[in-house]
């Protein structure tokens, strides 16, 4: 039995860059360098590990919805070892919220064909973390989210979810969707050969018409949520310097007690 894995990935602004909102209160993606969301690297890594440990043929497809530069995220995933990539790009997608994004992803995943969808636990820019569940719901498949260990065999995906109170062993019949956490195993660095091979791998470009999605279902117009206002976080204050003149410990305790930390 062969296995088709689709990994959903996001191209996000570099957290070390000067990130800010555009005038329409969407994230400005033009004036800041972007990259493959670090949390999605874990998803690519798990897909590749499943592929390496699976007895039969596996095809790993990475899928992203985003502007032209989002190809960089796909290229990175291909250089890590994914087999092919799909880039959904359309001007009407500008401003799409999580619900709209899940529609586009679900349609694209259906069109690509899949046995297993692997997502990161959240994006590093929006950090909503709801898209995997929304996509699973739209696809009508089981969702097993926030896994820190994954394996696939005999038509099922199994995994471990580490919660605050308990560790759960979970299993779902394929086709299914999983999301993986940043504790699922460090993502590999692309190898030199992988980078050179990436450009020879197929990268398909689809737009909304390829997915039978109307423009008003997505974008700012179709969004169910709206950013009303955005303000830069105030600069950090200087803080309090405690000078230790023999009573440093007491001062520190008093400081913490005052704020009800102790």
């Amino acid at each position, binding site marked *: 039995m062969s296995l088709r894995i689709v990994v959903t990935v996001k191209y996000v602004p570099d957290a070390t860059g000067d990130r800010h909102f555009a005038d329409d209160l969407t994230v400005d993606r033009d004036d800041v360098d972007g990259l493959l969301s670090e949390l999605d690297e874990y998803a690519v890594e798990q897909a590749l590990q499943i592929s390496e440990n699976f007895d039969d043929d596996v095809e790993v497809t990475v899928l992203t919805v985003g502007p032209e530069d989002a190809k960089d995220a796909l*290229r990175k995933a291909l250089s890590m070892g994914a087999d092919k990539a799909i880039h959904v790009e359309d001007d009407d997608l500008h401003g799409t919220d999580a619900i709209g994004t899940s529609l586009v992803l679900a349609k694209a995943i259906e069109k690509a064909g899949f046995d297993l969808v692997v997502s990161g636990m959240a994006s590093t820019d929006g950090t909503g973390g709801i898209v995997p569940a929304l996509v699973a719901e739209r696809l009508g498949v089981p969702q097993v989210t926030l896994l820190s260990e994954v394996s696939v065999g005999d038509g099922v995906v199994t995994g471990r979810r580490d919660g605050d109170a308990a560790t759960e062993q979970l299993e779902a019949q394929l086709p299914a969707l999983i999301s993986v956490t940043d504790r699922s195993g460090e993502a590999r*660095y692309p190898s*030199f*050969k992988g*980078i*050179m091979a990436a450009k020879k791998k197929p990268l398909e470009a689809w737009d909304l018409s390829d997915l039978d999605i109307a423009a008003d279902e997505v974008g700012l117009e179709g969004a169910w949520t709206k950013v009303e206002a955005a303000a830069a976080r105030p600069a950090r204050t200087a803080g309090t310097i405690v000078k230790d003149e023999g009573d440093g410990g007491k001062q520190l305790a008093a400081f913490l007690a005052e704020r009800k930390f102790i």
Partner: protein
Amino acid sequence: MLHTSTNLTSAQSIVDVLQAVIEKSAAHIASWATDEDQTVAYDLASMSSAVAAAAELLRHGTGEEAEADLALVYAADVAADLSGRLTGREALWGVAPTELAGIADQVAAGRDPALLDRVAERVLASSEAGPRHLSEDLQLVRSTFRKFAEDRILPVAERIHREDEDIPAEIIEGLAEMGCFGLSIPAEYGGSAEGGADELLSMVVVTEELSQASLGAAGSLITRPEIIGTAIARGGTEEQKQRWLPGIAAGEKLCGVAVTEPDYGSDVAGVTTRAVRDGDDWVLTGVKTWCTFAGRANYLLVLARTNEDRTVGHRGLSLFVVEKPSFPGHEWSMAQEGGGTIEGRAIRTLGYRGMHSYEVRFDRWRVPATDLIGMDDGLGRGFYLQMQAFANARLQTAARAVGVMQSALGLAVDYTRERSVFGRPLAGYQLTRVKIARMAALVAACRAFAFSAARAVTANGGQLEASQVKQLACRAAEWVTREAQQLHGGYGYAEEYTVSRLFVDARVLSIFEGADEVLALRVIARQLTKA
């Protein structure tokens, strides 16, 4: 008022005149014995390297304002340097005292503090000396190795340096998985070289990124597989290539080089370590020194005299691959049945720590005849093969120097922006800005030259350029790290500050892989005067 197009034209005018001076002087001293008349020959060789870099920096750019400015700043700096070296020695150079008079205005424009200020402004904003103009693939190569360097190397670089520790296995294994050790090994033997035009350029880009994090713990790991891989690929039998190259490419077999001897360094043709044939073996006896990484190495490339007749000179030398276990630490030894031994002892060094450089003593060590590179066909070809192998290493060393310089530049930018003196940031003072601009111009020129030399060597040329860029970039790294350290004030002298490591590491660059003076006199000056 400063105009970009004017700056580009000015830079070109300067470069044209400087190139003419170099050519004229090279023709003038062609009849000399450069070994005897070394003063002018050395200066000529050094200036030829700088002038070639100025020309490449001009060619490298797209003509945008920032690049035109950088090109002019560097060209003017080179002109000023040449002018200083010429003064009072014009007759020896064979040029007129007025040779540079025609470009006085252009040089003045390039040395105008206002122009340097503009360059500094951009460098202070970006920490970059200028755009690299890399292909998409190479940009991804760069960002990938940069990320690895930031994640895995930088956090331990200081500790390795200060404690003189071994390089952690995780760094070596990580780089091995990324294919770092097979960059120049043909794909058919497990490497990634497929004959593309950017092959050596990839190696240069990777080297620069790793060297930015640490010269000793990362950037230099590529050098030895580069040398041994080239020697085997060019001189080995098919069986030897199949046997050795895949392990080297995969990073499973680490490499060391044992060529230099206590009494023979750059004059390597005089080596005394001898190999005597005994049945199916060669028996090696002698002492090698400065064998970097020889402890961890599984393969040691050893140059030894296989012809007892010393009058045949370098034609009596052959190369061996001595297989050995990998040893951690500063001292190691091994023994064979029958009494053969090898002992290694690390030499304490000022910087360039992590790989450790050993003195290695061979005493009647038996090597199978199948481990002489090229076997019977390789007899007497050792010198020739190692010279070819070292040509790539020079290019790689230039890239190491660029990495160290870029790191120093970045630290200088960060520090001078943060540190205030007399009420304003150091970066606001003219003297700081002029230093930053000149450092950046030098980094950009060395990088552009390294890139073009890499392409030239890949296309089976570029031997002169590889030597020139090695000579230039390694000396430049000393100055750039020195200036970066100086800008840090007292903190720059503290081990706690990375820039102090860069300064001591940079010092080795002009000493190894072709000492500065030897490279200038015996390689560059000779080739210039031959042409």
